[in-house]
């Protein structure tokens, strides 16, 4: 196919050509970046927590009448006994927080006491000897807490755990050689010995401010014995989640009515917790998706409109070409090639624009660098879209009869 006549024809339609190319370029730039954002958000919201989410739920328990620390501790231990004995419960534990809660205690960890800057931040979880089993996070090195290591902690006490269990990402950050178990770190100003390592445990927040220490969690052998209340994390036997979620608050109230468990969010399954934690990300991904689709549709409609006009304008020339021996296929190919050339110009400019927009967003919106795959995918989508959109007008052009050449002269 000779493209020279196509180019010289396009030169006579500069404005239209430039407009289609510009529209393709802008669409490509937006769609590439939007796809990239969608992918990032979707990847973010499907990140694992390490928890056996299908069978686990959380009870937010508040005490009534501000009990003393000792009293709160005793009531909490009694509650845990009640929960663990409940039929259908695999295990239960109490903590100051839980993964995806939306916020909580995080603190810096140092390798030496006189170090100025923290080596890493970490999400702090209080846990007893049932914590790992309840969340179903197996140890990959070291040992679990012993029951005698667990102590109660009031708000005024300084957190100074002699031992702690860390997640693998935190261990790898602190000790890149992979020998974290047995080492001493400085945590809230005190030495703490790492006795165990688990594969995975997500932080309390998955918002961007917490992304620096995502999955870097430290579990300390503590029971939070404060007058306000505490979270109970409960894992049900497979298939018994709904039944246990109903039975657990009833059993707790029967054992001790001096408590508040909110009706709406006092008992939450992990599915609910996850949906809440990633609400914003899902909304953003959905919005981006809708915008992409509408943009592509509008661009396709624009191409159809402008090409239809060109076909109408050139009916006579098409007739002449047909009369001189060009087949229907030749005419079809002419318009397809013409669109391809314009699209190529558009995507070339659009690719540069996409990269420029991405670089700007990296500085303004804490975005990552656009990967080349998304650019290529966007280019491919737009080239196919152009060819698809031009097909109908091009087919109409190919059906222009040779006799058109003789009309209206």
């Amino acid at each position, binding site marked *: 196919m000779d493209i020279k006549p196509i180019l010289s024809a396009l030169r006579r339609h500069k*404005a*239209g050509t430039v*407009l*289609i190319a*510009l*529209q393709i370029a*802008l*669409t490509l*730039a*937006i769609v590439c970046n*939007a796809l990239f*954002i969608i992918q990032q958000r979707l990847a973010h919201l499907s990140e694992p927590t390490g928890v056996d989410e299908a069978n686990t739920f959380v009870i937010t328990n508040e005490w009534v009448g501000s009990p003393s620390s000792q009293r709160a501790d005793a009531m909490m231990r009694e509650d845990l006994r009640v929960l663990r004995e409940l039929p259908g419960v695999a295990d239960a534990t109490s903590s100051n927080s839980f993964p995806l809660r939306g916020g909580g205690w995080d603190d*810096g960890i140092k390798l030496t006491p006189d170090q*100025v*800057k*923290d080596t890493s931040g970490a999400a702090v979880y209080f846990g007893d000897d049932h914590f790992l089993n309840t969340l179903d996070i197996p140890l990959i090195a070291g040992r679990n807490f012993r029951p005698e290591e667990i102590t109660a902690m*009031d*708000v*005024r*006490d*300084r957190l100074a755990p002699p031992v702690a269990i860390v997640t693998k990402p935190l261990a790898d950050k602190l000790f890149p050689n992979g020998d974290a178990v047995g080492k001493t770190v400085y945590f809230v*100003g005190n030495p703490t010995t790492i006795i165990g390592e688990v594969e995975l445990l997500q932080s309390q927040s998955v918002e*961007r401010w917490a992304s620096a220490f995502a999955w870097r969690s430290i579990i300390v052998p503590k029971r939070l014995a404060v007058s306000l209340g505490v979270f109970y994390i409960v894992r049900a036997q497979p298939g018994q989640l709904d039944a246990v979620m109903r039975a657990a608050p009833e059993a707790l109230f029967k054992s001790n009515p001096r408590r508040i468990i909110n009706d709406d969010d006092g008992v939450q399954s992990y599915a609910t917790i996850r949906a809440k934690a990633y*609400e*914003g990300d899902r*909304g*953003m991904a959905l*919005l*981006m998706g809708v*915008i992409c689709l*509408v*943009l592509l549709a*509008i*661009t396709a*409609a*624009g191409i159809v*409109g*402008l090409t*239809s*006009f*060109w076909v*109408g*304008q050139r009916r006579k020339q098409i007739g002449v070409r047909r009369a001189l021996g060009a087949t229907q296929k030749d005419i079809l190919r002419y318009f397809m090639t013409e669109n391809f050339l314009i699209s190529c110009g558009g995507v070339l400019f659009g690719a540069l624009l996409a990269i420029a927009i991405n670089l700007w*967003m990296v500085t*303004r*919106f*804490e975005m990552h660098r656009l990967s080349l795959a998304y650019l290529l995918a966007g280019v491919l989508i737009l080239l196919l879209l152009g060819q698809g959109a031009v097909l109908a007008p091009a087919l109409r052009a190919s059906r222009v009869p040779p006799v058109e050449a003789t009309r*209206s002269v």
Partner: protein
Amino acid sequence: MFGYYLDLALRSLRRNKILTALMVLAIALGIGASMTTLTVLHVLSGDPLPGTSDSLFYPQVDPRDMDGYEEGKRPADQVTWTDGLNLLHAKRADRQALMTGGAVPVQPAQSNIDPFFSDARYTSSDFFPMFKVPFMYGRPWTEGEDNSRARVVVISRKLNEKLFGGKDSTGQTLRMKDTAFQVIGVLDEWKPTPRFYDIYMQSYGSVEDVFVPLSTSRDVHFEHSGSTDCWGTGGGDDEHAETSPCTWLQFWVQIDGADKVKAYHDYLVHYSQEQKTLGRFQRPPNVALPGLMEWMDINKVVPGDVRLQAWLALGFLLVCLVNTVGLMLAKFLRRSGELGVRRALGASKREVFMQLLVESGVIGLAGGFCGLLLAFVGLWLVRKQPSDYAALAHMSVGMLTFTFLLAVGSTLLAGLLPAWRACQITPALQLKSQ
């Protein structure tokens, strides 16, 4: 002449309904999307106190210990009890108020209303004149009442309606946490957006229902809530909040005049030095005095996603406009013959140009109108979202006008190039080729 052009435009638009519909739809979608996101952005990034915010500042000092100290880091976000009171009593600014948030159990006298928790703000007397808080009944409390820990309360209009049926309730008694308070004032509708004075507690929430003197709140052990940042041995519990090394209060000042701002900044440095000499502060003096709007910026109060959405929607509008330019160009050039006849019959280039602009203006008007409807649908969808700013997403008269001007203006702009191109046609050539 305009009427004639309008008639021509409508005829022409009717002739090719699909193309017209496509252009109107493209503009409507672009306008609808950008107006939805811009309205949200406009509402969220607005000035909470227009006319007053320029003279409001948020003094910051750095009372933390050396743990985690890095040079050049921002000072503490809030102040400790001791620093707050020192700065408050020093009275170096024109007005100053120290405050924190909380929730109080309200025990209504009426037996038909159950006791309930109300959001409360514990603050000092300057809060009301400094933030120009409107009063419906009564008055704010005085500095004397601050000092004497008076059992007085100012309530919101909403709470006044709930408890006292909207009548002037000053002088009445309100029981909170088993303590009797005298109602001395009722606020009028007041909704600063963002709720700038305590951005760590729902920066787009509504203002509290109960206002009591900070000194009183400590006296009767009202629980405080909100961001609490502790170091060293600080536990952050309420009982020891005055002495523990925690920042949990917001301190705002009003300073009129740029030279006074400089003087206040120097005072903060001097204060930090003095505290360091006394052994209370450990870090070298590290102070800041951001203005209200600057403080909103520093804390990125407007969510990043909202700004991203606004940019995305503007990009979307741009594509829609380019699309419309292309389609209009095609449409106008297709009518070269007709325009050639008009030109040959004596219409000047200017007149043809005007005629085509009227046509694009009609499309812009229709697109703008549909876009406006889409924007209302969009805002309704935003309000269905669970975020705390969702309820604020309402169209204002200003935004409404802006939408319409944007729609018509951008379509006219989009019509310029096609209309100009169509005018360049030489009539003779067009007539000959027919």
